[in-house]
């Protein structure tokens, strides 16, 4: 990992251990998080931060400790009422429950409503549409001039996918991108699309009304195979309270959008930073499926997930008390040398490339993980048929967030 040249240099080892606070969104915007976690994994793999902007919290930095909490949802809860799944709680009167912020049994009932849309059979049906669109987007790219990969490729492709999953009017699809950006925005960031929790709630209210209209229409029509129709026709989801409906829409928009978008961008960056891997790919495009998993590990599009302890317990020899916030730092577990060999290297032909934490594990494991892999596989298959070289021309602009590992823009050039 190389930090951008303009990032402030901090001697991580000189910070008192109990003052280490990896929840600072600036660490991810400046892309300087790596040495913080290297030190925690070494000196305090289960670490308690007493004071932060988000209150006290535990950090899990090792793969096996994260796995232990992922599979123990009985003790480590995702419930919105307890604070949910991010180190920062949603404001009490504006919290937006959805099944990712629920425990069984309600989580299970709602997850089962949407999961058929991303099941193997349906993915096979979608492959043709995804490939045709990907080809069209790539064919339209300029040669011999610098352009923004995020806007022209990553956002465009993931937004088209979202519009299809929701059966949303195709020409208005960038509206979905906007709502996704709003939903994940850190309101303290100067370049965020909204600047207060109230403003965010107001924009998401507009989203809920717009999609709610389509939802109501589809409730009157025979069931179809899109997310809104599936929600509208299922017992578990047809009568959600307003804020839960809002939360569910946000989850489905953000879940399928930002994460895949950032993998599309991060993969191109990783290949440019590792020219010998890029060459390996040109020499043997059959490595694409394995490279896709490696990209998702290396990029780690979701920085962390949080749980709340509902009973006293022990993790990695530390006593975690009922009510404590427990943060699983996927960025760190994915770089844990005890679980993954040579983890800081980007290696496109690793053995067992899917053994990474980027999709989480346990009952909340990403429902869209095979769809994300499919989109990325098709993208790289189509890229390699057209453009053996795509050069990164300057640094990426990253998002101010400790939750979504976002890349806002990346200047690239396809040689003429």
């Amino acid at each position: 990992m190389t930090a951008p040249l303009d990032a402030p240099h901090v001697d991580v080892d000189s910070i008192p251990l109990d003052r280490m606070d990896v929840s600072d969104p600036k660490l991810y915007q400046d892309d300087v998080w790596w040495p913080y976690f290297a030190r925690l994994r070494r000196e305090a793999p289960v670490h308690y931060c007493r004071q932060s902007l988000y209150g006290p919290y535990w950090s899990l930095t090792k793969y096996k400790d994260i796995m232990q909490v992922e599979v123990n949802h009985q003790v480590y809860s995702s419930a919105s009422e307890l604070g949910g799944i991010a180190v920062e709680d949603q404001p009490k009167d504006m919290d937006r429950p959805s099944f990712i912020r629920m425990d069984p049994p309600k989580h299970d009932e709602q997850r089962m409503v949407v999961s058929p849309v991303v099941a193997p059979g349906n993915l096979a049906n979608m492959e043709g549409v995804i490939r045709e669109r990907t080809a069209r987007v790539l064919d339209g790219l300029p040669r011999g001039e610098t352009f923004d990969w995020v806007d022209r490729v990553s956002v465009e492709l993931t937004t088209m996918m979202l519009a299809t999953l929701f059966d949303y009017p195709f020409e208005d699809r960038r509206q979905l991108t906007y709502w996704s950006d709003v939903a994940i925005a850190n309101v303290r960031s100067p370049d965020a699309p909204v600047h207060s929790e109230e403003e965010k709630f107001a924009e998401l209210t507009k989203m809920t009304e717009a999609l709610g209209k389509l939802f109501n229409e589809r409730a009157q029509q025979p069931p179809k195979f899109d997310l809104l129709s599936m929600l509208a026709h299922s017992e578990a989801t047809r009568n959600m309270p307003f804020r839960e409906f809002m939360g569910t829409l946000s989850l489905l928009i953000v879940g399928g959008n930002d994460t895949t978008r950032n993998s599309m961008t991060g993969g191109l960056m990783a290949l440019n930073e590792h020219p010998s891997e890029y060459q390996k790919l040109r020499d043997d495009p059959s490595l694409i499926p394995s490279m896709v998993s490696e990209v998702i590990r290396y990029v780690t599009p979701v920085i962390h997930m949080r749980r709340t302890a509902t009973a006293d317990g022990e993790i990695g020899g530390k006593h975690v008390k009922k009510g404590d916030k427990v943060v699983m730092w996927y960025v760190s577990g994915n770089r844990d040398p005890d679980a993954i060999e040579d983890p800081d290297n980007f290696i496109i032909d690793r053995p067992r490339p899917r053994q990474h934490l980027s999709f989480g594990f346990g009952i909340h494991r990403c429902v869209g993980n095979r769809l994300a892999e499919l989109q990325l596989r098709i993208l790289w298959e189509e890229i390699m048929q057209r453009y053996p070289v795509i050069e990164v021309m300057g640094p990426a602009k990253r998002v101010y967030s400790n939750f979504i590992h976002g890349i806002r823009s990346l200047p690239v050039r396809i040689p003429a």
Partner: protein
Amino acid sequence: MPKITYVEYGGREHRVEVPLGLSVMRGAVDNNIPGIDADCGGECACATCHVYIDQEWLGVTGMPVPGSQEASMLSFAALAQPNSRLSCQLKVSEALDGLVVRLPEGQH
């Protein structure tokens, strides 16, 4: 060593010997049998080692205990059937010699 037969979705059969004490999942992965992904490496945390057990073997393998981690992970596998198991939770024993498992259309 017990022999286990894995039948790919397309019908191709693989009959392999799997050492006692390993899981049925491990037997597939170690022999590079396609169709069992095992993303979590056997922690019962991903459901991508999903298999169908041939009817006559259900009495031997048993079913997941209701309410167990295996049962809840399986309940999210889109293609789960009453004879579904997660193969990482099946330990190879002499009693499983001759077991036949069928693989789903895809792992998810």
